[in-house]
């Protein structure tokens, strides 16, 4: 069984593709597709929902804007960029996917991603799981105390919070402090053994940024700015993100 052919109307042109090209350096090379299929042949998302990277790009190029913009494949592609790596013309398909995501009304974008983004916007920790500044500091200090007592070699180990002038500002994925705090400890031990001068910050400590996956520019920019400000306010030299 073959699918019915998609009919191309004479008057349709791709407003979507033109718009995306304006946003990308050198138009993202989106016109240069040789239709070779290297992108799709090495892509784990090929075939999901009957879509693949080449098809997605060709549909945009042929002016099937509506079909491209409503395709759920925009959320099945992880934008991993392997297709750019293998493409002889270095076409930026992931960026096309990003703008396809952006073309969705915000309230229709996947609820899980939206919820995580919205949660991160609620306070300056940027935690997608909603952990507050107080929650985080309490968990870190509580776990540290426990390990210092239980493991004598680490009685001087530190897990500083808001240490002014520390060299490294370390981010932490929300999952550890919220659901498996013991998993923070091996990293602290390594930093302790190598004598690293580091700190967490009560603001901007959460490593994740779901607003970026949401393709919500304003929000993900806000998240990055809050985190960058936290690093600067503490006067740290290097920002380490374990994500």
């Amino acid at each position, binding site marked *: 069984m073959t699918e019915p052919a998609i009919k191309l109307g004479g008057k349709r042109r791709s407003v979507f593709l033109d718009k995306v090209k304006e946003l990308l350096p050198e138009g993202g090379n989106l016109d240069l597709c040789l239709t070779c299929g290297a992108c799709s042949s090495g892509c784990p998302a090929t075939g999901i929902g009957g879509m693949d990277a080449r098809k997605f790009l060709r549909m945009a190029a042929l002016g099937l804007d509506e079909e491209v913009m409503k395709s759920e494949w925009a959320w*099945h592609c992880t934008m991993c960029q392997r297709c750019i790596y293998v493409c002889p013309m270095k076409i930026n398909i992931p960026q096309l996917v990003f703008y396809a995501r952006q073309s969705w009304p915000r309230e229709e974008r996947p609820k*899980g991603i939206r919820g995580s983004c919205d949660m991160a916007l609620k306070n300056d920790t940027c935690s997608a799981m909603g952990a507050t500044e107080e929650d985080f500091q309490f968990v870190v200090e509580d776990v540290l105390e426990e390990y210092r007592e239980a493991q004598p070699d680490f009685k001087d180990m530190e897990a500083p919070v808001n240490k002014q002038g520390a060299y490294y500002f370390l981010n932490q994925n929300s999952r550890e402090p919220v659901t498996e705090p013991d998993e923070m400890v091996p990293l602290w031990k390594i930093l302790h053994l190598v004598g690293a001068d580091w700190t967490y910050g009560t603001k901007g400590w959460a490593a994740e940024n779901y607003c970026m996956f949401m393709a919500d520019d304003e929000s993900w920019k806000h998240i990055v700015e809050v985190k960058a400000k936290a690093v600067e306010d503490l006067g740290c030299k290097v920002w380490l993100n374990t994500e």
Partner: protein
Amino acid sequence: MRKSFGDPVAEDLRFVVKSVVGEENFIEMVPNRSNNYCCGGGGGFLQAGYPEERRKYGEMKANQILSTGAGYCITPCHNCHSQIHDLSEIRDHPWQSVHLWTLICLSLGILGENEREYLGEDLKNVAVYGA
């Protein structure tokens, strides 16, 4: 790391991994480096509400891991860790998914009993710090 900083940085991480597990215990995936495939945990896929599609996407990665025959897959990124752990779980755990920090501390003999959530039975009781 590789995505942001390129293949040369990934070589540094290979040095770390080989130092920790021993050269003879390190198995490369095929393909590897920038030719490797995404596991399907990133880009928000884990939270996007498409579990079937996400696991379908992950088949390629699962088959890659299974082909190595390795008992452990090191996943320093959180998205990768969650996805690769899930891909293993739905196959009844043919491999363990571990953070790099776990293996570094294990190799140094400083990994306590409460820090072993992701180790398999074969390593659960090996060189337990404080025991």
